[in-house]
């Protein structure tokens, strides 16, 4: 069974932590730090699996984010590795091209998505079609780029859904937040001139 799911960025900031086992707060913090230390030192030639205490971590890196699932040692590695990818594809569709900021600003929605896909430490639903109904319930926030504060410009581009390093970058659209913000600002200025800003 899954013991916990962590999404961390390269700096070690946690973007999602979902626990399926009882840990107290100190222990959680320790686990988060240990996972970060274990996972970030590995490179692309390494496996996507690391032994971790009495468990193992299956992880995958997408742009600057590490998606880690901690499971029992006898669990099926590849099944969980693909469960991560399936999850990322669902997030990608849910947020229309997901980026790290989506997970920050809509953390409460991410929890919903997680609960639909994983429950009680087991895989609950794998169909991406079925996950689409989620979008109808909780709509993701409208134009997120407007909320982008200036410091975010240095962030890496959109998550591509290919495992890092991205081999098919030609096919996956990489949109820089900077470009998007500029476009939004331009649109704003235009609509101001026209006097049509809501």
């Amino acid at each position: 069974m899954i013991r916990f799911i962590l999404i961390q960025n390269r700096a070690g900031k946690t973007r999602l932590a979902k626990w399926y086992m009882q840990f107290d707060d100190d222990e959680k913090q320790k686990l988060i730090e240990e996972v970060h230390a274990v996972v970030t030192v590995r490179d692309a030639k390494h496996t996507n699996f690391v032994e971790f205490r009495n468990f193992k971590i299956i992880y995958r890196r997408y742009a600057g984010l590490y998606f880690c699932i901690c499971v029992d040692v006898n669990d099926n590695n590849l099944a969980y590795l693909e469960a991560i990818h399936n999850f990322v594809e669902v997030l990608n569709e849910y947020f229309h091209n997901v980026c790290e900021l989506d997970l920050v600003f809509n953390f409460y929605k991410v929890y919903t998505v997680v609960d639909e896909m994983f429950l009680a430490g087991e895989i609950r639903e794998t169909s991406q079609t079925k996950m689409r109904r989620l979008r109808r319930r909780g709509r993701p926030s409208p134009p997120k780029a407007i909320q982008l504060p200036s410091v975010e410009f240095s962030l890496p581009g959109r998550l591509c859904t290919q495992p890092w390093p991205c081999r098919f970058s030609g096919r996956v659209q990489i949109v820089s937040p900077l470009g998007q913000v500029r476009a939004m600002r331009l649109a704003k200025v235009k609509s101001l001139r026209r006097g049509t800003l809501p």
Partner: protein
Amino acid sequence: MPAVSKGDGMRGLAVFISDIRNCKSKEAEIKRINKELANIRSKFKGDKALDGYSKKKYVCKLLFIFLLGHDIDFGHMEAVNLLSSNRYTEKQIGYLFISVLVNSNSELIRLINNAIKNDLASRNPTFMGLALHCIANVGSREMAEAFAGEIPKILVAGDTMDSVKQSAALCLLRLYRTSPDLVPMGDWTSRVVHLLNDQHLGVVTAATSLITTLAQKNPEEFKTSVSLAVSRLSRIVTSASTDLQDYTYYFVPAPWLSVKLLRLLQCYPPPDPAVRGRLTECLETILNKAQEPPKSKKVQHSNAKNAVLFEAISLIIHHDSEPNLLVRACNQLGQFLQHRETNLRYLALESMCTLASSEFSHEAVKTHIETVINALKTERDVSVRQRAVDLLYAMCDRSNAQQIVAEMLSYLETADYSIREEIVLKVAILAEKYAVDYTWYVDTILNLIRIAGDYVSEEVWYRVIQIVINRDDVQGYAAKTVFEALQAPACHENLVKVGGYILGEFGNLIAGDPRSSPLIQFNLLHSKFHLCSVPTRALLLSTYIKFVNLFPEVKTTIQDVLRSDSQLKNADVELQQRAVEYLRLSTVASTDILATVLEEMPPFPERESSILAKLKKKKGPSTVTDLEEAKRERSADVNGGPEPAPASAASTPSPSADLLGLGAAPPAPAGPPPSSGGLLVDVFSDSPSAVAPLAPGSEDNFARFVCKNNGVLFENQLLQIGLKSEFRQNLGRMFIFYGNKTSTQFLNFTPTLICSDDLQTNLSLQTKPVDPTVDGGAQVQQVVNIECVSDFTEAPVLNIQFRYGGTFQNVSVKLPITLNKFFQPTEMASQDFFQRWKQLSSPQQEVQNIFKAKHPMDTEVTKAKIIGFGSALLEDVDPNPANFVGAGIIHTRTTQIGCLLRLEPNLQAQVRLLEERASYARAVFWLWCGMGPKWGRLRSSERCVPLCNLRCPADT
């Protein structure tokens, strides 16, 4: 679809998050958070009622603050309020808050449970889903108590929506994992199995996880799942990649479900021939598909396909019965060994490791030895190399041992520090296990010490000495080899130990050679003396005295050394004592005495290698690499190790006595403490409970306490719970002793007594909280005052929660307070007894049970048992002297109930008839329940009356 008001983006929240992200320093962040907290607090306290949207927004902000790592001490009420909202987004935030900030505040739990109950009854699938997810996320005992009965119903009801079924299945799984005692098997189990046939693959996916877990604990009840799983699996693997539509993942049909089904099948042995044929077909299809050209170049496709393949191989290995499949699996894995994906190479090595232990595929695995050795040399990822070492170890046998050991030794020179110790152990074991020629063995171990001396544990060098001593043919060679090895300018201390010991025993075998004359041997050893630690020096001193015996010509040299100030006045007591005693021994004892005292060591008794035990421990499931503990155990192991010192030193246990094998004896495993009721324990049953390690909630131990009052209720590695209790009339007092068996403090130690509502009205328990910290090795005591208000059946549960070394521990045991504890014996004459017996003749007042005794019936033991149960034993009452008769009164606050009891053994048939009559209809039944676990176990033959039948007339 819920209407979207003001957009559910919660602009205020987004602004707040942006602000936090813009904070330049930790202080600024805290300041901003405090400002927000003050704002939210005033909003919540304000006169104006907040609308749902604002409430949701503020609760969500609080949640964000909590997730940032700050404590939140308010807002719970508002979150609970959100639960009863009709808007999805508000409800969702409410549930999320509850799930993340679980709070066992009893007031709130009631409200939360109420809200969940409403949502479960709402028939709105979205709301039901939220409620079920909340239960699954929290999974507390309170929730299990409230919903464990409800959820199976939802799960198997015909009109439940598919998505709700999915959630219900996994929710039930969570409750079963946390409180298995609250999730009784029932009618629903057979219907759950049929969910494997469900049309909706999501439901099957969720249900398979539930069934797998349940089947692991109750294999018999879920046996039918095997054939259903096989047919479901066969439908999936034979389907075209488009058949399953949205459950097809990168052209692989339902990969996760297939994996889960294969996993479920691993709970059982190979099925019946008919089903087995189909299963074999499935497995062959999966193996065939692996050979087909990929339908997509994407890694997702191959990963999903191989996930199923690896699980299929696990199942094949688990069944270990189809040689054909095993060999095919092995060939498939062999291909993966050279795959360009590191993941696949890793998994192939791992999987092959288990395959190597099967007799059918061992030879097939061996053909890949070159590839594996190559992996050891070229893999970049240490974890892959580690798997390669494991596989080499697993595939090793007599035919390839020399090659494998040589490869491992050469790898050891460059191996990562983290895995060196394990490799050393493995090499040592293989060398010993497959040694044909023991000179090879000695060479290998000496090489091991040379290459990785620091990682050679005591066991390894003890073992080499044991073997050399037990085998005459290798002794001379060993002496020569160590002598040569010692000539290296820098040699490891472990080598000095081995060298010292072996030369001390067998130095005479090479003394004939002028290059290794006694004096040269001695000087060589003594040149290392000053660089060594105290235990090694002590060992060398023993070697010196042995030299005195072996080579009289060096006696004076050695005496000089022993006499020197650095020995006689050594600061270390052990060294000083040895020097003094050995010096004395060498001067006063005649040659004969010396020869007797320092005779050659007798052979060691053959036993399992302690190295193997160590490796097992290292690889065991609880591999918390606790060096300290390993060391402690090591010193306990040494008892059987070589004893380098002569008997004269045996009387001086000292801090360095490890070497003597006299180290503190291993603490005797704590047996069950003698209890006054020992006689009463397990009169009839198989007595498994006496030392049995108790699973939480174990009925066995509870049952032991039905007839006794003192003893150990629960024990595991950390905690021991002892009980002492006394009862008089309707009152009782119980002392609970919690013993910390570790050397570490328990923190937040909180024992709680849990009574169901029913029990609460009938039994009053009063106690004071105990100190939340329990020091290592300490014992704390808790007193429980008990009053029996009215008759009762259930027993209270004692739940103990504490933190031990950072992990949260949770133990629940049933507290043995049963109705018969309030049973007072009454003496009665024969006439009175039968008069009353006849009065109590209405069917409601009588219970009869016939059961088969499992054990020979011993009169004295049975008598003791009846007295222990609480009633008086009336002798000379029954006309048949073989029968046992008892009488007593149950005292409760409200009433007193007289009870009579007769036990009629039929010695020939080993059957007993137990009859009871009571003046109060319910009491008879309750009394039975009180005896339940103990006596219930006796109802093993089908001839007995099931307890539920008795319930009908008596239960009012």
